[in-house]
């Protein structure tokens, strides 16, 4: 596809991509601009997009708040550890169910899915009792365990779909070349399934990062709350710092985008191209 046609096509794709990005980011641009306004400016009529007085100090106020710092720590620890746990458990489970027939396989997969069907809202009362009995209220362990358990099923299903779509011939070729089961898994399957694993990792991280109702229930100590729960204390019946709430919400998006930027290259395929001859 040499010459002008290819160039025009690429430019058209870029333009479409730009429009898409603008549409996706527009609401959050409003959020960012609102975070840069002084509190008093939030309710002017007619509404303004840009602040009259720019107030970037809102971001400093939030970042220097020791409570905000402890919420951020809790969120990072819980999301990272539970994501690692989910992947460690889900990769072998998904690989096994994708590659081996065993009695009750469909039942196992379906049972895994059923655990997802309970709305967390309906389970929090039981969860609170469970962790209260175990003496784990206000601990990292409790929140990490719940998040890992909630996200495990999604991860298994996502990963299974990818393992299943990898041509069996690749593994057979690896076996012929002298790779053992573990060698095949680590050196062949995991690299080829990288896009799926990245998707599952993003999913588990974001789900844990944004989990609200369980954290609200299990973490009664203010300093042990994750960001989602913590930042709501900027707007209560007594204090209403909408500007700070929007600033904190904007900051809360940043770690996820950074993580994503770090692992996004693995979403790029081409790994399977040329693997089967």
């Amino acid at each position, binding site marked *: 596809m040499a010459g002008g046609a290819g160039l025009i096509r690429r430019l058209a794709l870029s333009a479409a991509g730009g429009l898409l990005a603008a549409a996706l980011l527009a609401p959050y641009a409003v959020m960012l601009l*609102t975070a840069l306004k002084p509190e008093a400016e939030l309710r002017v009529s007619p509404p303004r997009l840009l602040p009259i007085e720019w107030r970037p100090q809102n971001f400093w106020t939030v970042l220097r708040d020791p409570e905000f710092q402890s919420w951020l720590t809790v969120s990072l620890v819980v999301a990272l550890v539970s994501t690692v746990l989910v992947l460690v458990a889900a990769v072998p489970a998904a690989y096994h169910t994708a590659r081996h027939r065993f009695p009750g396989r469909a039942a196992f997969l379906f049972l895994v899915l059923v655990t997802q069907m309970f709305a967390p809202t309906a389970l929090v009362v039981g969860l609170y009792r469970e962790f209260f009995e175990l003496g784990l209220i206000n601990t990292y362990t409790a929140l990490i365990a719940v998040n890992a358990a909630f996200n495990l099923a999604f991860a298994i299903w996502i990963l299974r779909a990818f393992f299943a779509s990898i041509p069996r011939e690749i593994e057979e070729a690896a076996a012929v070349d002298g790779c053992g089961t573990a060698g095949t898994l680590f050196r062949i399957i995991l690299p080829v399934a990288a896009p799926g694993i990245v998707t599952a990792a993003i999913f588990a991280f974001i789900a844990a990062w944004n989990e609200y109702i369980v954290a609200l229930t299990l973490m009664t100590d203010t300093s042990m709350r994750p960001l989602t729960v913590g930042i709501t204390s900027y707007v209560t019946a007594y204090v209403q710092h909408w500007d700070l709430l929007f600033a904190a919400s904007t900051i809360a998006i940043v770690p996820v985008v950074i993580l994503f930027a770090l692992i996004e290259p693995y979403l790029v395929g081409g790994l399977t191209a040329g693997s089967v001859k």
Partner: protein
Amino acid sequence: MVIYPAVELVRASLGRYSITGLHQGAVGLRNYARLVGQEALPAVAGNTVVWVAAVVALTIALSLGLAQLLNESFPGRRLVRWALIVPWAASLIMTSKLFVWLYDYYFGLLNRVTAAAGLAPLDWLGDDRTVMGAMIAVGVFVSLPFTTYVLLAGLQTIPGEVYEAARVDGAAGWRSYRLITLPLLRPALLVAAVLNLIYVFNSFPIVWTLNDRNPGFAHDTMITFMYKIAFKSALRDVGLAAALGVVNVLLILVAVIAYLRVARWREEPV
């Protein structure tokens, strides 16, 4: 982790609770009988069907296009991929609150945009005709990133040779897409649809936040209805809410089985 609270839920659905939450003994299946007698139930069930069907169908349709776009290589693709993660990375509650602001009759920017187009301002979240559409728009908006990434990752695992072979055999463009891409994308598509179905059904913050100031249950889904029964309405009935919670799980179960039947989910031959 999931089983113990689930057992608690079933147990609660069989009990009777005072408005302060004290367990007052078992009542068997009477909570379920009372649930069927709730006046709001048909409307709420109808809302739930519209909400889930519309959000899942629109999300999948749009995501197929977006995944295809992001699978092409073009300058700036990385930035577009980063942008796509943002609606997912932002907390659902904050996104919902943000949209309440945007939809606001007096202070919202949406009415400024429609005014510029010469339209009369609308009370998006207060008007019976627009509130469901407004909620569905937000639902699709936040479901797009996840679905698109699952489909994109699916597209990435399709070997390039398959397309070459198709081209040699004379299939290109739409034909190649329909005959090659869609069938090979099926595992990813199936996962995306099933997980979305569950996710959207159980979605609480959007409906809760956007529907906040409307009285009664006219625009509730089963999930917010359950929460209102337990904590907000005059009913204050944990037993009744738990019964609804159990019914919800059964409904999703039926919906997923029905979907898998229609999509002819079968184990790939091993």
